[in-house]
């Protein structure tokens, strides 16, 4: 049984059909990346899983149980943490406080324990340790991204949804963020990663899916996708970057 399974999921925003009958699955322990250009429906897929957006049709199963009718607060309590696009760090709280609040989905954990766990997060995210008592809005984009991922991990999720962790970051910071994703993977957390940067996404993934205007077009192992001409053609980002790197 897959950890998460989408069966023929469609999502509409008014007249626009953002997802059209998408079916995909992630097995426990896997890192799966969801690739595609702007407006392909990558973020919408994550929003549908975490309950921010209600699917118009189709079914989403987590550990075999349907998520239909559940809101984000209930879904995160089941063990799905969503680190959304744009990082969404609470601007008026410190980095440390932001990270502590990541444990809000777990019941019966004392404040002292949450405090200690948040402290321990700075071992993995050592770059932001000096900034732990700084307000969220004063952090740089890369620092905010690390706070957002650390906050997601505090939920002790069975499934971590990461939406464009590389967006707007300097290349050196992007590689740091992906080092952390590799470490998360090594620790055994299942990850569904949305990326525009195909090269980075595929570098950490076991499998990938490619979305185009709300539809899944191809799926496969990272090297298969990377060498697939259709995939390169499907979105310029990967193609242009691949050409630039060559």
């Amino acid at each position, binding site marked *: 049984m897959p950890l998460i399974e989408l069966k023929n999921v469609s999502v509409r925003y008014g007249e626009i059909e953002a997802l059209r009958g998408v079916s995909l699955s992630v097995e426990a322990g896997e890192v799966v990346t969801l690739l595609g250009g702007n407006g392909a429906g990558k973020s919408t897929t994550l929003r549908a899983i975490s309950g921010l957006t209600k699917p118009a049709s189709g079914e989403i199963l987590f550990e075999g149980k349907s998520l239909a009718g559940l809101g984000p607060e209930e879904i*995160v309590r089941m063990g799905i943490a969503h680190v959304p696009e744009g990082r969404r760090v609470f601007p*008026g709280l410190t980095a440390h406080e932001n990270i502590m*609040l990541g444990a809000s989905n777990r019941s019966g954990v004392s404040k002292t324990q949450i405090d200690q766990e948040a402290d321990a997060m700075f071992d993995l995210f050592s770059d932001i340790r000096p900034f732990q008592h700084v307000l969220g809005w004063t952090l740089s984009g890369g620092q*905010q991204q690390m706070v957002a991922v650390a906050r997601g991990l505090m939920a002790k999720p069975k499934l971590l949804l990461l939406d464009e962790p590389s967006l707007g970051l300097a290349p050196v910071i992007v590689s740091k963020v992906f080092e952390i994703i590799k470490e998360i993977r090594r620790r055994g957390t299942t990850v569904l990663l949305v990326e525009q940067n195909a090269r980075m996404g595929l570098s950490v993934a076991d499998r990938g899916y490619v979305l185009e205007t709300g539809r899944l077009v191809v799926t496969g192992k990272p090297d298969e996708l990377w060498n697939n001409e259709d995939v390169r053609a499907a979105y310029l980002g990967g193609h242009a970057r691949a050409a630039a790197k060559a």
Partner: protein
Amino acid sequence: MDIVFQLLFQGIGIGSVYALVALGFVLIFRATNVVNFAQGEFSMVAAFLMVIFSVDLEWPYWISFLLSLGGMAIYGALFNLGVYFPLRHRTYLPVIISTIGASILVSNSTLALYGPQPQVLQPLLDFPGFNIGTVYLDAQYLLIIGVTVVLVAFQYWFFEHTLLGKKLQATSQDKEMASLLGIPVATMIMLTFVYSAMIGGLAGIMVAPILFVSIHMGGTIALKAFAATIIGGFGDVAGAIIGGLALGVIETFGAAYVSVPYKDGFAFLVLVAFLVFRPQGIFGERVAEKA
């Protein structure tokens, strides 16, 4: 010189009431992004509850006091459920209209029940006050200042040092993200309304023996508190307190040295001056969103 201290004392006393109501304003504004135009009625309803329990039913003062505060907690919860909750997914405009409607409904229901005559409420404390030198310290003003200090200290501790306080702050900063983390957003907003109604009510009960208890007291207090939040910097907790105190002092001195009939006018003079020259208030916008 003594007259200056005397006026300062009274100004801070009445300013504390504005500060408490302003605090309630700011907390609801931060949690819901909407100005609650029925904020002043929190104070009025609490004062009338006191009249019902201690004057009409002749129950002991402290029991009436506790019952009134408890009543305000329930009132705040019902207010949230009836006025805000059904419109929570709409824009701010329907919610604002809903709070204005609630304000009119509550004042006019009170008018229907009690008529237009102001009611009199005895002070909380038995002794009137005492002198330090030639400055007379009225017990009711001392009580108001003392309670305000304790409440502000409590609130600071609560928001800065408890996890629940942090969750309330997170809810006010980004509701969608808060719900993604598993913070029960609806409950957080409910708690905000309950607390806001209770501090507004407390201010109303404490100021009632100084003003009269009437259906108009809510409107007056709310306008002053609103001016206080503008002066302090809208949405800023410390600003609401400083703004409230400043307003109380300014209008007391204005009444003493310039004109008593224009006492209420000074608040709005200051308000207009701030809107023209420093619209972000004393403290400005401390939290800016990064692009």
